[in-house]
């Protein structure tokens, strides 16, 4: 299964459409305030620690799960729909 997924992913990257989706998702998330939420989460983590001892890995490890959960459902649904239709349209070529 993962191989299938990577194949699709790979193709998407090759066609350059992944960048398109990524840009779209980024814009959507900024629009809905997700990015600011993530920044607040980061600030909390920074407050807990000394700002010198903070590493990017630590931030990624602690923020990513919450970031995934914080993505609003409509955005997620829209993206999934768009990716799926994009994949399916390839079938008809």
């Amino acid at each position, binding site marked *: 299964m993962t191989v*299938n997924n990577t194949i699709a*992913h790979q193709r998407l990257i090759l066609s350059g459409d992944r960048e398109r989706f*990524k840009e779209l998702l980024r814009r959507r998330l900024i629009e809905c305030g997700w990015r600011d939420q993530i920044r607040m989460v*980061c600030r909390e983590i920074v407050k807990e620690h000394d700002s010198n001892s*903070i590493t990017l890995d630590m931030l*990624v490890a602690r923020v990513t799960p919450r970031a995934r959960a914080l993505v609003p459902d409509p955005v997620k649904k829209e993206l999934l729909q768009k990716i799926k239709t994009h994949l399916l349209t390839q079938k008809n070529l």
Partner: protein
Amino acid sequence: MNTIVSELSMNDLNSKFFDIIQNESTAEDAANFIFDSVCEDVTLGVLFEVHHGIKTGLTELLEGEKEDEEPYKIVNSPECDVFGFSILKKTPDANCSCPNCDRPVSATRFAPHLEKCMGMGRNSSRIASRRIASNSREPTSYAGLPSDDEDDVDWSGTLHSERRKRRMKNNKRNSKIHNGIRSNNGNHNPDSNDGATYETMSANEKKNLLLQICGVVSEHTKKLCTRSTRCPQHTEEQRRALRNSVLEPSTPESQSMGLTAEDAGSPPDSSPSSSCSSSSRKRDRHRAVPKMKNKREKLSPLNGRD
């Protein structure tokens, strides 16, 4: 299908991709996978931004609220005020004891106290010498106590409170005179001596009065000028003429009385216009003041001080 050959050609990839897409569920799966990966990428992008901001100090600059809370905290300890300064800090050195009278004096008032207590300084030496003189003259009123507390503002004894009250009154009046509010036409006070003319006074009274004030009779109001003997409104000649005319018939010493107080101590044979050195004048004044003081106190409350 399950193995991917490393040198996968574009054609192989395409064909496998089309295989996957044919199935709805695998396509859905692939879409989910792609979304996750994209989402992760976006998150990572934001985290890069944040991390960059933290490490370069950019976020601190932008937010600038990190050290805001500390200085404004209210300190809540019994020994300090709300700013965290000690309350006790002031008290230890607040009191000095006066070497002259052994009384505790607050440090801020110490210099003025010494000035009064030891009789140094401009006004105080006069006051002190006067006090000493009156002390020797009227011992009953002081009950034999050392009288050095008379002018101490920071002394809160009750022994001489009545006396002090009286003095305060005198001071008030005197200050009015010094300020020029009560000039020669303002003496409507019935108990004030200066409203009267020289005819109603005895020779001694006249003499004492003229030692303290200018005394020139105003042309308009017919009242005496209550300013000091050096008042700028009247000339030396006017004063001398007045003293001559007022004191001449009564006392033989009028000649010397014709001079102002400063010149009173100069030898009688010297001409009135002869100038003494300032130091000798000062000395003379000191000698003259205590003599005046006792009479002055009896004479009028107005002249309690100069």
